């Protein structure tokens, strides 16, 4: 095995420390028994207990979850259908080029531009319907818009990977469109759909900008709550909340990694 130069090792460890030092700091001070300041006053879990007594935080957590779940389910369904439609039919070069470009827009533009565009569009649509008042529905629409593209890209790469031999065999055995979709395509696609769905879910939890621009007074999410609270001053309770969110992220990442790795070896 190749050996690393001492400088490579030192630099790498310092880079990792640079990534983790702030996060570990937050976790450490979330169990510190001091209301103010950064002096260690002993271990406590009381900031965590207090989180569950705070109605605002519970509501924000609920909103975050509803937003992520609803948008992920819709985006995964729409994205999967879109991917099948794009990959399995004889589209001309220009049509597929056009579809491809549209699909890549949410991936390559800075999210603040999508957020600004949605604010303006919702603002004008408000004249038509009160559904477009700032709030959870707008946030869900915004999240679906960028999730949809990512899901479609992931599912499409899976479609390419599984090839068409099994589908062709099913056709030769007189499978109907519906039977083919249900019994052949969906089972083969499932790992891709789940991977896409998990990506969409994490993207939703990770998002701040789209939510920030489209949220209303009643639809605080955890990132929005933390952002607002931090500007009023940092408290141990915010550390505890952030640590919890980080732990959820760690679990999601590890589960996703396990899942995708097993898929590769299978």
């Amino acid at each position: 095995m190749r050996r690393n130069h001492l400088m490579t090792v030192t630099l790498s460890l310092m880079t990792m420390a640079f990534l983790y030092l702030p996060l570990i700091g937050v976790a450490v001070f979330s169990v510190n028994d001091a209301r103010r300041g950064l002096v260690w006053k002993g271990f406590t879990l009381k900031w965590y207990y207090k989180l569950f007594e705070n109605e605002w935080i519970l509501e924000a957590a609920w909103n975050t979850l509803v937003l992520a779940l609803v948008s992920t389910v819709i985006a995964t369904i729409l994205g999967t259908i879109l991917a099948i439609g794009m990959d399995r039919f004889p589209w001309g070069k220009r049509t597929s080029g056009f579809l491809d470009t549209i699909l890549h827009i949410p991936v390559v533009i800075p999210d603040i531009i999508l957020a600004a565009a949605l604010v303006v569009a919702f603002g004008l649509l408000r004249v038509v319907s009160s559904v477009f008042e700032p709030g959870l529905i707008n946030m869900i629409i915004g999240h679906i818009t960028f999730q949809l593209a990512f899901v479609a890209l992931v599912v499409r790469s899976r479609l390419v990977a599984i090839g068409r031999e099994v589908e062709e065999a099913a056709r030769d055995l007189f499978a109907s469109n519906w039977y083919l979709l249900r019994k052949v395509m969906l089972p083969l696609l499932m790992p891709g759909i789940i991977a896409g769905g998990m990506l969409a879910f994490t993207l939703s939890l990770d998002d701040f900008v789209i939510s920030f621009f489209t949220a209303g007074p009643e639809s605080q999410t955890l990132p929005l709550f933390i952002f607002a609270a931090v500007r009023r001053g940092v408290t141990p309770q915010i550390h505890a909340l952030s640590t919890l969110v980080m732990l959820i992220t760690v679990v999601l990442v590890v589960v996703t990694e396990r899942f995708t790795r097993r898929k590769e070896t299978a």
Partner: protein
Amino acid sequence: MSNALLSWYGELTTRRNLLKRGASLLLPGMLWLMLFLVLPGLVLVVVSFATRGAYGQLEWTFTVENYQRLAGFSVFGWTSDYLVILWRSVVVAFVTTLISVVLSYPLCFYIAARSERSRYMWLTLVIIPFWTNMVIRAYAWFLILAPEMPFAKIAAFFGFIPAGAPLYPNAFAVYLGMVSMFLPFVTLPLYASVERIDWALVEAAQDLYASPVRVFTQAILPQTMPGLSVGIILTFVPAMGMFVVPDLLGGAKYMLVGNLIQQQFGASRDWPFGAAISMGLMVLTMIGLHIYRRKGKEIEYV
């Protein structure tokens, strides 16, 4: 022609039938993207030429005033304020990308040389910050840069900041936050390329007495180009539109274009100007993407 029977992967059908079925599958997703992505984008373009009413409402008097303002022209004469912010955003995005690349190479070499088991652990350790909410990661720096911490004390000792003050908000804090935010965006795609490096080529270069610089530019760089260019684009584009980090760690002292846009849609309620700035950012992004496109690489997503 379109009514001729054809065999499409085992299915006997006509081209028209096939396309009809395909279109019905495309319809829901594409309709969504048209309605909530393409249309809002076009509306944003139109609004950037509209006028702000006295109460922040939109007035459909078309003008290029918003763009003139962005370029610094107003009734009071020319100021460079907005152009400085735009330029600063490009510089911050560029420097962030550069530092992330410089730090990512050793990290990738290090991880690639581990045993297979610990390689997964290290990669997971890089992926976790990648997916941690950026608000949390930005504010986490508050702790490290707090006045009680050694970093702020050292800075105060040398007179960079007054004693007892935190090391934020300032340009330094913005760079710290930005690099820690985007480093994994470079490391992960770069690693995919580093893992596949043919080290025999590197050794050959060394055997032939190439200087370390030449070994890097001629033996390592070309082999890692695919991953590197993905990492660069994944960092540079979002870094330019970033607004959480400069908002929390830069404050009013170090505004970037993201903050400027947010201000127009928030406190100032000046949508037309906000739309015009967004267009400016869009143009900068397009230039960045165009430079990348010419490399002709396909983006791989994590």
